């Protein structure tokens, strides 16, 4: 909403009424604060009701711990939670990188080589329809109980959305843009670097945002199958021991990490795609 107004371009036709402009900007700022504050207030409200309900109805902690109990565990077991997060984060980040890189390379091959796409794309779709919980044990059997299996599960879960989006994104060039490149005698490499890659960036980032949260899910699911360390292992242990406050605290740490991962990708998107206003607004 503010993109054009914010620029100090000498626009013809814009009056220099500073007071009016200031009021307009103040109104925009107020609206933005409202958008941030309202969810925070709502969230606080829900936590408060939860706390009151648990105390008022005397619900046993193993069934549903009060937010204050979860907070206490978060504080007391911070070291334990962080060391487990480190394992999960390593798996998720490595899986994210490997899965997306593989998708990028294969999407590029698909775009330049139709036959390969026609041969392998249906297989990719078939693999994608298999639920994670079904193929996760297979990968653990194949790769063992260590980090490798979790990284592989995480990579596989990231792979498909990026492959689909990038195949579409790299093709997202208009006939006239391609004709323009031909008029300019552009080499295939120049068409790829100057046109296709750039055109695909909005598609890439929407895939990476999906992958940021699914990578963490992949790592945790992998840990459920068999692991001694990591947030997934901690969730299983806490559940067996009816240690609900620890279970909830683990979930809080897991979602906080997912949220942070997503926020970093979103931030990178906003930095990179300053030109793509439609995408940024929606």
């Amino acid at each position, binding site marked *: 909403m503010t*993109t*054009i107004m914010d*620029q100090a*371009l*000498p626009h013809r036709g814009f009056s220099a009424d500073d007071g009016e402009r200031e009021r307009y900007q103040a109104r925009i700022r107020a609206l933005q604060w409202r958008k941030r504050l309202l969810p925070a207030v709502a969230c606080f409200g829900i936590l408060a009701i939860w706390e009151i309900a648990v105390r008022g109805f005397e619900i046993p902690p193993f069934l549903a711990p009060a937010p204050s109990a979860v907070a206490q565990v978060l504080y007391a077991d911070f070291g334990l939670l962080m060391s487990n997060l480190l394992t999960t984060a390593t798996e998720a980040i490595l899986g994210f990188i490997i899965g997306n890189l593989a998708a990028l390379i294969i999407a590029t091959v698909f775009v330049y080589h139709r036959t390969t796409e026609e041969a392998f794309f249906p297989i990719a779709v078939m693999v994608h329809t298999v639920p994670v919980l079904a193929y996760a044990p297979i990968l653990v059997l194949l790769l063992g109980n260590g980090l490798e299996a979790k990284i592989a599960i995480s990579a596989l879960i990231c792979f498909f959305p990026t492959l689909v989006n990038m195949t579409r994104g790299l093709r997202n060039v*208009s006939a*006239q*843009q391609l*004709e*323009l*490149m*031909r*008029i*300019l*005698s*552009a*080499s295939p490499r*120049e068409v790829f670097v*100057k*046109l296709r890659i*750039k055109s695909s*960036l909005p598609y890439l980032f929407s895939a990476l945002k999906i992958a940021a949260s699914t990578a963490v899910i992949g790592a945790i699911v992998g840990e459920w199958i068999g692991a001694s360390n990591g947030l997934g292992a901690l969730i299983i242990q806490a559940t067996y021991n009816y240690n609900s406050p620890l279970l909830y605290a683990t979930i809080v740490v897991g979602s906080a990490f997912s949220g942070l991962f997503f926020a970093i990708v979103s931030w990178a998107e906003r930095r990179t*795609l*300053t*030109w*793509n*206003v*439609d995408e940024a607004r929606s």
Partner: protein
Amino acid sequence: MTQTSLKLSTHSSPGRATAVDIINVTVRFTTDRGTVTALDNIDLQVPAGAFLTLLGPSGCGKSTLLRVVADLIEPASGSVTVLGSSPSVARGRRDIGFVFQDAALLPWRTAIQNVELPLEIGGQKPTKQRWSSKELLQLVGLAGWEHAFPHELSGGMRQRVAIARALITDPKLLLMDEPFGALDEITRDRLNEELLQIWASTGTTILFVTHSIYEAAFLGENVLLLAANPGRVKEIVPIPLPGNRKVSLRETKGFVDLVAQLRRVLETC
């Protein structure tokens, strides 16, 4: 079919070199519904420095003809020579500029970066530039908008950036494929006048495709009328109007008569 009688009339001396030489060009497209002859045996010589407008009903192959000259479409038979060499060589020399109906700007580049795109692509760097990208944006009336992104520009402004981009390599031949077709009439009138000024100051040869009779008559020294099914040259109508044309010219009797004449020919296309 003999077309030797069709000649372009020009204002300047008759001895000028030929910019575009099209000899017996035929183009066919094969689709599910069979083979279509888009262009049938076209013969056309365009002298250097000419402004020729191409007018005709849709499907008459006017855009196809432009694309054959630009080496974007290979003709089934016949030959095309652009400034003494094949279109692909001329294109490699940066002698051809092309303006599309859609501005075809790269949305991640600012106006000035879009204008400079041809300088970064295609290997050989131009030895000397006639105009800097900043001067070209001034020429098309976009001074002060250098760092605006395409999404911040109106349709008319985007088309001006596209024209500046086509001019940065100082092409001897400018091909324009309905460049103002999607614009409102007021913007279109203004850009028509500006294009004539640009033509006067660059001296480049211009082939301009349009489906507006007014635009064809207002811009061209000659109007090439094409007929459809198969695409062929119907007639070349000279436009004996002064060189320095203003939009008000359209209200004169001479202009109205020319438009009526073109319309009559078009009805038979």
